[in-house]
């Protein structure tokens, strides 16, 4: 019996091949192989035009002492810390607003979600003009309210960070809102009816029923948001270019500049591989956490 089953399975493998092969080929070439290729490149000094020079762990040793690496990694972490709570909480608030008994729910939902379908290039462009110092929309509004001074939004570290976080929130909060809405709609109506019988106020309902029941999805959304925020590049590149100076330059931008502007692909690859390990660690933590929550 056992040998028979083994035979069937072996035969089935041939039958499965045409189904799994097309994807597997693309997957191995464009997703799995680059990881190992990246590790290999990171052990070399390489400028694309010349031959690869094996240097062992030199790139990694250089990285540890490179203040620009730590600064850009720190900037990425700062962005994760600033953006995650802001975007998760705003997503929850928007979901609660859309989940009210209110006419025109669809309009609210569409409004909050719409920026998500825009390209990051368009979002960044709108933000650049919104926060433009002299004729930007925001400064003109502020002037109407009596603010005389011209605010250079992208000229100061703290303000530039604010603009980047704001742009990201505006662009992506709709995504979190949808996940929260789905969870809100899963809460049985009877819970609220029971609370009403007991004379609970709206706030008590929110605090004692809704929020505790949203805890699991909040973890999922938070961890997704953390991974997404770690990968920040495009908004910063297009809005501040990493500036003022290098004050908002994230790690992905530093990897890009090192590899493709300064042509140090070996060093770029070693930072990319380090960044890859960091992201995998975050993902593994997420999976472990989800399992523990479910099991």
């Amino acid at each position, binding site marked *: 019996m056992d040998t028979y089953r083994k035979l069937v*399975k072996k035969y*089935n*493998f041939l*039958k*499965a091949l045409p*189904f799994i092969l*097309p*994807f*597997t080929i693309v*997957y191995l070439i*464009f*997703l*799995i*192989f*680059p990881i190992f*290729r*990246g590790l290999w*490149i990171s052990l070399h000094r390489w400028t694309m035009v010349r031959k690869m020079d094996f240097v062992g762990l030199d790139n990694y040793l250089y990285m540890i002492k490179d203040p620009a690496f730590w600064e850009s990694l720190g900037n990425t972490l700062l962005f994760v810390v600033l953006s995650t709570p802001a975007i998760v909480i705003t997503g929850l608030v928007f979901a609660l607003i859309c989940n009210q008994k209110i*006419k*025109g729910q669809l309009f*609210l939902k569409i*409004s*909050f979600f*719409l*920026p998500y*379908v*825009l*390209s*990051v*290039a*368009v979002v*960044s*462009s*709108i933000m*650049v*003009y*919104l926060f*433009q110092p002299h*004729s930007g*929309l925001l400064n003109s509004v502020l002037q*109407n309210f009596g603010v005389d001074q011209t605010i250079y939004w992208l000229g100061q570290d703290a303000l530039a960070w604010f603009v980047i976080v704001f742009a990201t929130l505006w662009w992506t909060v709709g*995504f979190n809102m*949808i*996940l929260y809405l789905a969870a809100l709609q899963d809460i049985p109506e009877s819970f609220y009816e029971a609370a009403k019988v007991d*004379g609970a106020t*709206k706030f008590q309902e929110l605090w004692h029923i809704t929020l505790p029941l949203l805890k699991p999805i909040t973890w999922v959304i938070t961890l*997704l948001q953390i*991974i*997404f925020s770690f*990968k920040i*590049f*495009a908004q910063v590149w297009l809005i501040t270019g990493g500036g003022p100076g290098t004050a908002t330059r994230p790690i992905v931008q530093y990897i*890009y500049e090192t*590899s*493709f502007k300064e042509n140090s*692909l070996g060093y*770029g690859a070693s930072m990319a591989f380090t960044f890859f390990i960091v*992201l*995998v660690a975050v*993902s593994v933590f997420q999976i472990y956490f989800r399992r523990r929550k479910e099991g």
Partner: protein
Amino acid sequence: MENNNSPTRKVIKYSFSYLLAVLFIFPIIWMLFASLKPSGFHVASIIEWFLPPYSIVNYFDVIDRAPVIRWMFNSLVVATSVTFLVIIFDSLAAFALSVIDFKYKNVVFVLFTVGLMVPTEANVVALFDIVNKLGLLNTYPGLIFPRVAIPLGIIILKEFFDAIPRDLIDSARIDGCGLFRIYFSIFMPLSKAAIASIGIFTFIQAWNSFLWPFIAIMTKEMFTLPVGVPTFTDAYTPDYSIPMTVNMIASTPAIVAFLLFQKQIIKGIKMTGIKG
């Protein structure tokens, strides 16, 4: 006890919710009106942004002056091909993982799941090298395949396929159907909703992707919209009309598609729960 449905409460609820929603899409509305201002028009106060004169001459100007239509065509080719290939490749693989009991099945499944953790952002240097060696830099396939390699669709579709009753397979088998027939005539039609959601979601992600096209494209003719659009944004000119027109041209297809398919898109997000 306070009345939850008192008129004041209702007014506050409605005005707060609607005000917030309108404020939120205000930048999009502004983009529309700014694109309708004649180029070089001086805007003295905020309200002037939204008042006539309107003109659509910018749109013709932009289309004449820059290869925006070409960029849109490039984006369309890339996003459509990615979507098409993702649907075919992912559904085939998901079918094998769900239906066929083959050797190394678990190994294959784990291998695909691991791929979910690999971000393009941390892979760009090696990907550039590989795509370059394959001679695919600055080509459509070079933009398409790295996106097709993402295994998310397989994981989602496998769950869907697992829920399809096995009796259907058995009776199809008795009728003499081969595996491809079962895949094509039973599994694909039964998973239309899931496939539509994955398709739309994949399309939006591919349409909007920035980092990889930004690195892999060398010439202006091959730009996709997200790479081309920023070449118009200039923080130092007070003339917003032209860049905002470019933004509008780049966004309109996405906005229209969203309004048409918003139900499926929202369903797709609930299903995938993954950001780009």
